[in-house]
C-alpha cells in the first residue's frame, strides 16, 4: 500500500542551527501539506502545495521557515535558525486532486527537538 514517506524520523538540534525535513507524497497526489503538531495540540497547517505552487502559507513563519516543492513531487521544509519553540512533530500529508474532500494521507512525521 502506498504511503507518504518522511525523513528523518527524529532530529535533535541546537537552537540557531538549520534543519531540514523531506517528504515524498503518494504517487499521483498533486496536493501536499506540511503540518506542525506541538505536544498536546492538534496539527496546524504550515503550508499547502498544489503541484509546485503554494496554495496557502499564511501560517508559515516566513522569517525562519521555508518550503519548496520544485518539481511538484517531493518537498522540503527548512527551518533556519531553529528556536526552542520549534520543537514539535512535523507532519507531511498528501491528497488526490479528485479524491474524497478532506481525506489526507499522512506520513509518520519528523519529530524535532531543539536544545
Amino acid at each position, binding site marked *: 500500500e502506498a*504511503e*507518504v514517506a518522511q525523513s528523518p524520523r527524529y532530529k535533535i538540534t541546537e537552537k540557531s542551527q538549520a534543519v531540514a525535513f523531506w517528504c515524498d507524497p503518494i504517487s499521483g497526489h498533486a*496536493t501536499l*501539506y506540511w503540518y506542525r503538531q506541538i505536544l*498536546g*495540540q*492538534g*496539527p*496546524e*497547517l504550515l503550508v*499547502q502545495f*498544489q503541484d509546485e505552487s503554494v*496554495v*496557502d502559507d499564511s501560517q508559515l513563519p516566513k522569517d525562519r521557515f521555508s518550503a519548496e516543492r520544485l518539481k511538484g513531487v517531493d518537498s522540503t521544509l527548512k527551518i533556519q535558525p531553529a528556536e526552542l519553540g520549534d520543537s514539535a512533530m512535523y*507532519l507531511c*500529508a498528501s*491528497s488526490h486532486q479528485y479524491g*474524497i*474532500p*478532506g*481525506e*489526507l*494521507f*499522512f*506520513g*509518520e*512525521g519528523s519529530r524535532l527537538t531543539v536544545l
Partner: protein
Amino acid sequence: AQTVTQSQPEMSVQEAETVTLSCTYDTSESNYYLFWYKQPPSRQMILVIRQEAYKQQNATENRFSVNFQKAAKSFSLKISDSQLGDTAMYFCAFMKHQTGANNLFFGTGTRLTVIP
C-alpha cells in the same frame, strides 16, 4: 475563524464496550465537512469517518458512527465493540466546503486507551 474543541483529553474503555468521544466546533460557514482522524502510537494519522454538513443522516463506518447535531455544532464519535487496536489519539477536524483548499482545522485530541 473556525475552532474545534475536544473537552476530553483522555478516556478509557474496556475491550468490547462502547465509548463516545465529544467534539464541538464553531463556524459561520453553512456548508462544511467534519472528520474524525485516528493517530495510533508511533503510526501515521488516518481518516476514520467523515460527515458532510448538508447531510442529516449520521455517517457510519463499521464499528464507528457519529452523532452530528448541526444546530448545536456538536460532532461526537461512537466506537462500538472497542478493540485493542482502537487505542490511539483521536482528532476531530473541520474543513470548509471550498474547491482547492483542503485545510483541516484540528481539535486538541482525545487519547483513548482500550483496556483488555
